[in-house]
């Protein structure tokens, strides 16, 4: 079974340090895929605020990583997610998978980032010059998660 690391971070997330900690770590893994989601510029952006649900969010991320580890041949899966207030360019989430084969690592990362967008309890709020608003769910994110859920259900069947 893959080694799984899940963290909810209140302070800071350092994608360079996370990558450094994983590179070369698993002798059997020829490939390490990572994804960093970061605060993107938008008009008047001052900060992004992320709310979570203590006691539930981490468990939801754990389940996503476990499903990835069952579905793909990976040696290691990592999800680290910020909560609280972030500014432009700051990392929000770091997802990684190490695997013997590149396609497994890349697909596992793609799955995990797709799923955590809509299946882990996080809520984003954007603070701008003119006020604050909650970020609306994106249909495409919902579709991506639905795709995986159907795919995995049909494999388990």
């Amino acid at each position, binding site marked *: 079974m893959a080694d799984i690391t899940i963290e909810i971070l209140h302070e800071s997330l350092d994608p360079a340090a996370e990558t450094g900690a994983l590179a070369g770590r698993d002798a059997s893994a020829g490939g390490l895929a990572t994804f960093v989601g970061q605060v993107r510029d938008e008009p008047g952006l001052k900060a992004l605020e992320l709310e979570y649900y203590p006691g539930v969010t981490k468990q939801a991320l754990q389940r996503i990583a476990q499903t990835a580890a069952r579905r793909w041949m990976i040696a290691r899966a990592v999800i680290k997610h910020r909560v609280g207030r972030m500014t432009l360019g700051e990392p929000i989430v770091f997802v990684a998978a190490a695997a013997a084969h590149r396609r497994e690592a890349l697909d596992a990362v793609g799955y995990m980032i797709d799923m*955590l967008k809509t*299946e882990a309890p996080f*809520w984003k709020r954007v603070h701008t010059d003119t006020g604050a608003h909650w970020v609306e769910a994106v249909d495409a994110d919902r579709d991506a998660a639905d795709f995986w859920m159907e795919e995995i259900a049909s494999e388990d069947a």
Partner: protein
Amino acid sequence: MKLTVRYVAALRDRMGRAEADLDLPEGIADSEALIGHLRAAEPAAEALSHPSVRLILNDAIVPRPAPLSDGDTLAFCPPFTGG
């Protein structure tokens, strides 16, 4: 039946509070019946009935309708927007 309800993120703004302890009359067996009860008390609770609203019951994400028991904590959540 005693129940704690939580309103999360945009629903907290909509409902004007984060949490409420309720003492419910007989016959409210699940989340959908609860929503009906809340709507009768305040129109803002209509937002809770939207199909995109997700539920966290105690410490688990659960599908709707969710059966309710005495002492439960039920959180009404807008769609998740992580990552």
